């Protein structure tokens, strides 16, 4: 039982990371119809920035804060310079552009920081903490807390603020949003900035356990996509829950189904998604549009 709980919590920690990245993907997809394949590499870049600041003697939390600000600015800048000119163009072109971005950022990371894996000392110790007789890793608990905090803050921004309303309106119906006076291009850029922030959280939280190197987020990106599809590509809550479910499920399968082990986890993830989509094509939380005409 203790082992089971430990595996669940440790799965929730990875799930929180998948969920944050999945949410970033869903936010951009909802707002612009763009599938951002570079989201994982953007997160890695953020983690590198954070690592560099710490390497220069910064404490973790100020470095994390600065990384978040820089990532936001980077996301906005990326949208304004690279994405905007081809927004609304053919889907294939947009997809290829974000894949190109993936490769470019990956190359940039290698060029600046080299390909060797770096130790990233996170803010949480890996020492165990006893809760009701079960030993959990402090790092797992910390990662869960930070991921959930990030997701909740973004959720509140969208649901409760005027800016969030503008973001949702611009995503739902850009033409109408403009007629209401919303500056849609600014909202789209803001959306990319917020997605980059979520990515930064995911990247920095993942780095201590994965070791920091340019390809760190490759598999995480696949899991994040899986989580987004599982939850329903257009449902922010679905993306987060999909991430958590996937994290726990993979951990349990890896622990208890011995012949699967570490290598087949990705295949298991995809099998799960396939079966969910067979039953619910819109994903667990996706809505098939309800509309009366």
């Amino acid at each position: 039982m203790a082992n089971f709980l430990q595996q669940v919590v440790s799965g929730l920690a990875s799930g929180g990371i998948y969920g944050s990245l999945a949410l970033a993907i869903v936010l951009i997809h909802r707002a612009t119809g763009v599938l951002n394949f570079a989201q994982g590499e953007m997160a890695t870049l953020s983690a590198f920035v954070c690592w560099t600041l710490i390497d220069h003697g910064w404490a973790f939390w100020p470095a994390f804060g600065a990384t978040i600000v820089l990532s936001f600015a980077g996301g906005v800048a990326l949208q304004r310079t690279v994405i905007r000119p081809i927004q609304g163009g053919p889907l294939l072109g947009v997809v290829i552009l974000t894949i190109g971005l993936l490769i470019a950022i990956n190359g940039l990371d290698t060029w600046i920081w080299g390909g060797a894996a770096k130790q990233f000392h996170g803010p949480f110790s890996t020492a165990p903490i006893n809760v009701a007789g079960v030993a959990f890793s402090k790092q797992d608990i910390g990662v869960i807390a930070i991921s959930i905090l990030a997701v909740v803050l973004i959720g509140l921004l969208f649901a409760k603020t005027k800016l969030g309303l503008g973001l949702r309106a611009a995503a739902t119906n850009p033409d109408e949003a403009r007629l209401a006076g919303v500056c849609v291009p600014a909202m789209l850029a803001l959306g990319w900035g917020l997605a980059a922030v979520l990515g930064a959280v995911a990247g920095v939280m993942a780095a201590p356990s994965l070791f920091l190197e340019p390809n760190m987020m490759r598999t995480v990106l696949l899991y994040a996509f899986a989580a987004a599809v599982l939850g329903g590509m257009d449902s922010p809550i679905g993306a987060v829950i999909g991430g958590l479910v996937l994290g726990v499920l993979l951990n349990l399968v890896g622990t208890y189904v011995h012949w699967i082990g570490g290598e087949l986890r990705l295949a298991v993830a995809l099998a799960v998604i396939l079966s969910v989509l067979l039953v619910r094509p819109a994903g667990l939380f996706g809505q098939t549009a309800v509309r009366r005409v």
Partner: protein
Amino acid sequence: MPLLELRDVEARYGEIRALHGVTLSVAEGDFVAILGANGAGKTTALRAISGTVKTSGDVLYDGHKIFRRTPESMARRGVAHVPEGRGTFMTLSVLDNLRIGAWVRRGTSPRDLANVFEFFPRLYERRDQQAGTLSGGEQQMLALGRAMMAKPRLLLLDEPSLGLAPLVVREIFATLGRMNESGTTIVVVEQNATLALRAAKHAFLLEAGRVVLGGVASDLQANESVRRSYLGY
């Protein structure tokens, strides 16, 4: 000084010219109907004002020539445009749809919301529903309610009666009348000329992208050729 003036405004969609030099003016506090057959350029005339189509010629608003009109800049100047087909935010709640109407204003005052709900009690009953689940009439009410939230100086409406039950249409035009009485200038495009001429103070008749007739609504109503072509009696 008129609130809105169009001088020789032309508009085209690619090769097709939709407006051939439209000239008209709308006084502050006026209620103007733009009539005409399908394809006469009524919708384009509204779009020229709100900046959703490229034009040449001059559009003057509040005495100033407005050069680079975009929908968002016109919204900030106090122009609310309700396009044809009840443009609502389908996946947002009724309440959020109304709140976005107040985007150009500072915050959403509960009094404005209460005001809209007083006009359209049915929207209050459905305030937490997604706009996409409303009936056609309710969506038109929502679109109008959203425009009310902006407290516009100039309200542009495109075919508000289209596809709606007569009772709903009457309700909507009654609301327009009350908004006009409280000072909002209204320009409405309508295929239903009888209805529009009854509600409006002034009217313009568009034919093939030109204004062919303009004046006091009751005069147009009495005009022989208008009656034969547009009123059908």
